[in-house]
């Protein structure tokens, strides 16, 4: 047993988090910033933060993650990090030549009270920001919220670039939330199929799925451009996919630039994708083409085909609120039973929403925001489940408790493919079903007796 010290009895803990189901704000800000074209994320703190975030993102995406740091020393921590950041901006534009630097803070620079706006002003007045280059910033104190909050804060900083011209562009802003590059591509594909011209931000496709060609571009072709971000204020509407990841930016555009926003769930599974497509066509005033309805039908077909194997299966899932809400709804729609739902990210609304989704279902959900995987494991020890869905850290529980495990979420450190195969939309739904089914049927094949082992399933 690897988690041999985890007792079955649940004791209330007030101070000690064990096996967290969240990370800190800056890593989210770094990932979001990578979805801007030609952008070098910059961590305003000691260099360990940047090293940790780059390592974790690299291990998940299996791609180079370039980001710089203010490399605070003890002196900078006492006297403030302004000199470090101004010097960093100068060095970055000289050596790496990005179009954009996206600065995020850390618990260090936030605790000493560094003011990004003021440092930005200093960099401008010192002439350290060349013409045509952009520096944006987001305050991302690690001791508030989680990596999801940091992602949201950086996305909001992107929205704040909006410069409404007064004329509507006819485009729709779509804020996808923290999803894989492949999911970003899938969202763009669906929008194109529906015939809606969208601005997707952030957009890590074309950045974190670079081909191997013998050449290395620190700034690949993908990502939303600063020009596109400036025009988000002219859009006819914004779709924020996920309350936690995307709503703040959308609401800012709504209140400051009069771009009406709709906050939706992330389009994982049938119903959430239905709502996404439905709102998209309403905002843009277009009809949904048959090809999309056809794809939808294929997902419904597979749900019906596989229902016998999925029906009634108990699932424990952990991860981030937006993903968990959509996944819980999807599982319930398959007549599966997401009995344990845990996020490390705070938010009372999360627990309420999960309870609403599970209301009237033939099982009782245990849900926890600000929870941890230690607690979830204890729940499992008291009453086991048939399937685990979450990030790589679940493999220890899966092994100890001998439960099938589907990797989904962030970070995935021990498998590949997540960056290439989307799980959003109808096609993504097919992929989720395929992966779940494989886990469950592999287990059935392993556990069936010789008498009941069958060729055809």
């Amino acid at each position, binding site marked *: 047993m690897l988690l041999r010290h985890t007792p079955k009895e649940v004791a209330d803990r007030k*101070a000690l988090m064990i096996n967290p189901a969240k990370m800190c704000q800056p890593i989210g800000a770094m990932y979001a910033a990578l979805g801007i074209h030609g952008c070098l994320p910059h961590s305003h703190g000691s260099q360990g*933060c940047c090293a940790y975030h780059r*390592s974790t993102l690299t291990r998940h995406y299996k791609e180079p993650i370039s980001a710089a740091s203010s*490399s605070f020393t003890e002196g900078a921590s006492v006297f403030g990090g302004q000199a470090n950041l101004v010097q960093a901006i100068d060095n970055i534009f000289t*050596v*790496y030549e990005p179009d954009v630097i996206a600065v995020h803070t850390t618990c260090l620079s936030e605790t000493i009270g560094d003011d990004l706006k003021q440092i930005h002003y200093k960099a401008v007045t010192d002439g350290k920001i060349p013409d045509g280059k952009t520096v944006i910033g987001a305050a991302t*104190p690690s001791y508030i919220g989680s990596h999801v909050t940091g992602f949201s804060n950086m996305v909001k900083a992107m929205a704040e670039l909006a410069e409404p011209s007064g004329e509507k562009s006819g485009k729709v802003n779509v804020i996808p939330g923290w999803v894989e590059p492949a999911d970003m591509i899938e969202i763009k594909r669906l929008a194109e199929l529906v015939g809606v011209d969208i601005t997707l931000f952030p957009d890590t496709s074309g950045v974190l799925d670079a081909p191997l060609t013998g050449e290395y571009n620190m700034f690949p072709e993908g990502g939303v451009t600063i020009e596109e971000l400036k025009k988000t204020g002219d859009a006819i509407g914004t779709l924020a996919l996920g309350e936690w990841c995307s709503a703040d930016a959308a609401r800012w555009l709504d209140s400051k630039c009069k771009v009406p926003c709709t906050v939706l769930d992330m389009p994982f599974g049938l119903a959430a994708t239905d709502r996404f497509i439905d709102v998209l066509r309403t905002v843009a005033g277009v009809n949904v083409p048959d090809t999309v309805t056809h794809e939808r039908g294929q997902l419904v077909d597979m749900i019906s085909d596989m229902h016998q194997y999925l029906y009634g299966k108990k699932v424990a899932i952990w991860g981030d609120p937006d993903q968990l809400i959509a996944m819980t709804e999807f599982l319930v729609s398959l007549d599966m039973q997401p009995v344990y739902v845990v996020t490390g990210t705070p938010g009372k609304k999360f627990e309420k929403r999960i309870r609403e989704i599970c209301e009237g279902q033939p099982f009782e959900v245990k849900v926890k925001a600000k929870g941890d995987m230690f607690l979830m494991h204890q729940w499992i020890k008291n009453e086991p489940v048939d399937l685990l869905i979450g990030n790589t850290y679940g493999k220890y529980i899966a092994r100890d408790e001998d439960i099938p495990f589907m990797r989904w979420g962030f970070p995935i450190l021990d498998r590949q493919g997540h960056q290439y195969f989307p799980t959003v939309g109808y096609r993504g739904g097919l992929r989720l079903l395929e992966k779940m089914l494989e886990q469950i049927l592999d287990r059935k094949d392993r556990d069936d007796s010789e008498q009941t082992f069958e060729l055809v399933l």
Partner: protein
Amino acid sequence: MAKTKKLVQLDPTDIKAALLKKYPPKVARKRAKQIMINEAQESETPSEIVANVRTIPGIITMRGCTYAGCKGVIMGPTRDIVNITHGPIGCGFYSWLTRRNQTDAGTDGDNYMPYCFSTDMQDQDIIFGGEKKLEAAIQEAYDLFHPKGIAIFATCPVGLIGDDIHAVARKMKEKFGDCNVFAFSCEGYKGVSQSAGHHIANNQVFTHIVGENKTPKEGEYKINLLGEYNIGGDGFEIDRILKLCGITCISTFSGNSSYDQFASSQHADLNAVMCHRSINYVADMLETKYGIPWIKVNFIGAAATAKSLRKIAQYFDNKTLIEKVEAVIAAEMPAVEAAVADVRPRTEGKTAMMFVGGSRAHHYTELFGEMGMKTISAGYEFGHRDDYEGRDVLPTIKVDADSRNIEELDIKADENLYNPRKTPEELEALEKSGLKFKHYKGMNHDMDSGTIIVDDLNQYEAEKLVEIMKPDLFCAGIKEKYSIQKLGIPMKQLHSYDSGGPYAGFKGAVNFYNEIDRLVNSKVWSYMKAPWQENPELTATFVWE
């Protein structure tokens, strides 16, 4: 870049100039002192390199922080101490199981390594102080697990808000009575790299654990293995070999280690130092306080392993041991030689670059040498001058403000336990016969003349070096892996070994030969261009013509 291009014989001074060309003047001046063209020869004094200095803000470094060096590197591999990170959640999360330290839970079964413990500080803790929460967290950990030890690690904000983690640790230790609680002031902003964290960790382990177990350990030829972290099972392979030789390893700092190993380390009669950078402090302190001499060893490379075993045997000066060691080497080498004979025709003459650690970039030159490969450029991520130029330069190293902030313990000989394992005459005789104590000659010595040595190599210089020198293999860490591989050059992680290992000892050497053979000869590096890119002209003819 095409794989077929051969190493261009460029003048090293031109290469250095190319690395510095794009930098702003201030950056170029600083970096120029950290890039040297090696001139090391046996009798010459090596030229000086600037190392262990601040990284330049905005220059994409490979380095991590003091917390990473303390919690991640040194304390991470100890299985039966509950390591609580006091801070916001990130630091604890990112250092959770990511260094590939393997462990054997042993007979007592205590193993907290798969767990991550954190106080998950919130804004109110930053504003009002986190000591109460820390105290409660320690209590909860104690109630849940009753471990032998609880270690507290400070993250950046802890030092800034002034939480007295040591006072909390003392209080809880007294309260529990049966659990040692101690703390590490390893805030990420201290020092200039992970290296400061190693030092802080060493100091606290020495202060709070070493010497706690007074009962002498059974066994012959008792040694401590210092600076071996059991990445990918390296420590298991070394343990296997030591056992075959009849050498008793009292403790390993800190791969696959336990609380009791640290607590008993003063019973050893020799300290064998693997990673000089991270642990030489402990070796020095153990010698001063308890009279245990130390020698530098290296178990990376089959020949290096054999040499290190012979050094240990020479120290104990026992005929049976010497014969046993020779017998083990004789038994192990045929498999190694067979593996070398197999891979060498495919690896001979290939070139490697290594930018890693504070010792590995040096140790692995031996392994590459055994395969006929040449290290054309190397450097440390967090080494000090003595790791490059050898310990002889120690007296001349200027202590700057960043290093001065890291505590130096004032260790004196223990009144009761100081027991010199060898008399001065015996030590002198051993020195005369070639066994050097407290001696490390550094990396530069083993690098060819004209090779380029770069301290704290960064992303830009890495790309430039690869572009200019076109090595067959580049070795660094995970952050560097994919940008190098996009250039069509295989990249081997030498921090965490990708998913491979062990690479130490005899079996490890064989693993490494095969892994490097796989990497440098993989077919994938020939797939960079599509057929229509190789031959873009339209020359097709109709099949019926």
